[in-house]
């Protein structure tokens, strides 16, 4: 609409919008602030918002006492690994269904979707036993495979919707111009699909990083990613809130930033293209 919004209305909405935004964001902000407090300050009553003795000891302790870097490495390896393998397998599959659709394409797509809806508890027992017998429990490899399998449907779906937006006649023109299939994918499809592929990567990194069922049940100490590491703070050994806050801040910061930049991708990926 070309009419301008009156300032008074803008002001009201600004106040409400910022108020609600602040309220919702508060827990994250509070965690961030608490990470710089001493343990005593962290549980102090009345709680101190900004005026306390800022310290970095928690961040140092988190690595010194509990090998934080190992868990971060685990998260990184598992997220990137599963996304990488997923792409390797998913890009060809999405290409096939987007550009050479057949009678069964629609069926295959919806079937893939249905595998994502399988409740993980339904297969907890056999997967746990299989992993135990094959020595995959508490290994990064085992977890990477599982992450890849549960996110593969989303990878394929997202790539499929992005590929479908590439005009077919550009690919046909490449064929007429003498490009073999491989060259067509390399020189024409991939450059045009890079934004779509990047979006898929972003969303999958986020989903794998935050996954909290298999990461909690299939790992112990060696391969535990950050989700499991943070979970270990739940056993009441005492109140280590400041350390918990430091560990949490480090664990969520990268994904928060990634997430802020991938809102559109999230919408497309998690609604399987139903909302764009």
């Amino acid at each position, binding site marked *: 609409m070309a009419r301008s919004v009156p300032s008074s209305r803008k002001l009201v909405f600004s106040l409400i919008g910022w108020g609600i935004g602040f309220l919702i964001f508060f827990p994250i902000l509070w965690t961030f602030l608490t990470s710089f407090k001493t343990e005593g300050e962290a549980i102090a009553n009345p709680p101190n918002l900004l005026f306390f003795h800022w310290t970095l000891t928690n961040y140092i302790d988190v690595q010194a006492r509990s090998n934080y870097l190992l868990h971060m490495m685990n998260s990184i390896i598992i997220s990137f690994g599963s996304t990488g393998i997923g792409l390797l397998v998913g890009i060809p599959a999405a290409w096939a269904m987007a550009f050479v659709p057949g009678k069964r394409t629609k069926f295959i797509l919806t079937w893939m979707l249905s595998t994502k809806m399988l409740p993980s508890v339904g297969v907890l027992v056999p997967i746990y036993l299989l992993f135990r017998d094959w020595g995959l429990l508490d290994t990064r490899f085992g977890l990477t495979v599982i992450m890849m399998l549960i996110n593969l449907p989303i990878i394929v779906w997202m790539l499929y919707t992005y590929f479908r937006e590439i*005009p077919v*006649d*550009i690919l*046909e*023109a*490449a*064929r*007429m*111009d*003498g*490009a*073999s299939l491989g*060259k067509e994918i390399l*020189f*024409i499809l991939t*450059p*045009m699909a890079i934004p779509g592929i990047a979006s898929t990567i972003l969303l999958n990194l986020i989903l794998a990083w935050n996954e909290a069922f298999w990461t909690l049940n299939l790992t112990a100490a060696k391969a535990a990613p950050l989700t499991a590491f943070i979970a270990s703070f739940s056993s009441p050994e005492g109140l280590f809130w400041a350390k918990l806050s430091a560990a949490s801040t480090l664990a969520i910061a990268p994904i928060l930033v990634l997430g802020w930049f991938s809102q559109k991708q999230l919408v497309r990926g998690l609604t399987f293209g139903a909302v764009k």
Partner: protein
Amino acid sequence: MGNIRLENVQKAFGDTIVIPDINLEIEEGEFIVFVGPSGCGKSTLLRLIAGLEDVTSGRIAIDGRDVTSQPPASRRLAMVFQTYALYPHMSVYRNIAFPLKMAGMDKESIDRRVKEAAATLNLTQYLDRRPGQLSGGQRQRVAIGRAIVREPAAFLFDEPLSNLDAALRVAMRLEISELHHQLKTTMIYVTHDQVEAMTMADRIVVLNRGRIEQVGSPLELYHNPKNLFVAGFIGSPKMNFITGAEAEKHSAHTLGVRPEHLHCTADTGTWQGTVHVPEHLGSDTFLHVEVDGIGPLTVRTDGEMPFNYGDRIWLTPQEGKLQKFDTNGEPL
């Protein structure tokens, strides 16, 4: 070079037969146009020749070589798509160079050929731009340039002018015809616009529901249409068709007379009627007349005709220009 032969070509999509049986020989160097209403199969036929679709049965030969099972790349044909299909992430230069790069040509030769093509099409100053920065007509030329550099056996055009505005369309029509005279390569051109067909073609193939209705030069089709469909398709505005009592008077099922072959006067003539909608273009006048006992007829005359809505006028068909068709739609 550039002789293409289609033998008993059939195409079905699943259970639907789109093209039942086509036999056609395209001469070397000719400009042949596939024309017909939407859904008649003209684009499908072009894509079969290109190799972008497989024939269900039949044979396609290019210069005597059977290419029926060959992929597009090895048929040595070039195609200009309706949407131009330019590579958006490449400059004009790289777009035109792409087919040569795929053929493995060396850099100097590529450079020479690209610059030659660009010069022919007045694209030299745009070589560094991306398709997104070009106008419709310029993109059209890049698409043509990409086709020219390959020095193909034949050019395939799939409704290349439909996305251009009217003025540009006329200009590009001339450019393409000019190009044909220059290069003398076979050109197969698909369009639904019969004006394009008439003005550009050496021969026209009129298609209807997957079948060839008639093949011939533009004037052949104009003067001697083989059936009602062709008679009504070629010529703009459409040929007038008269059925009923008046047709029977001439011992035919249907009479056909073109708007430009009707003479109109205020006082005397063969048929009398009332003018409904007059269209004055300055150069011509079209009158849509409700003729007593016959129905609506369209009349075309040069220059100005001083008739208006509601006037009573007389129409007379020119000598020998009244075409007669029997019940099967074939000429008597």
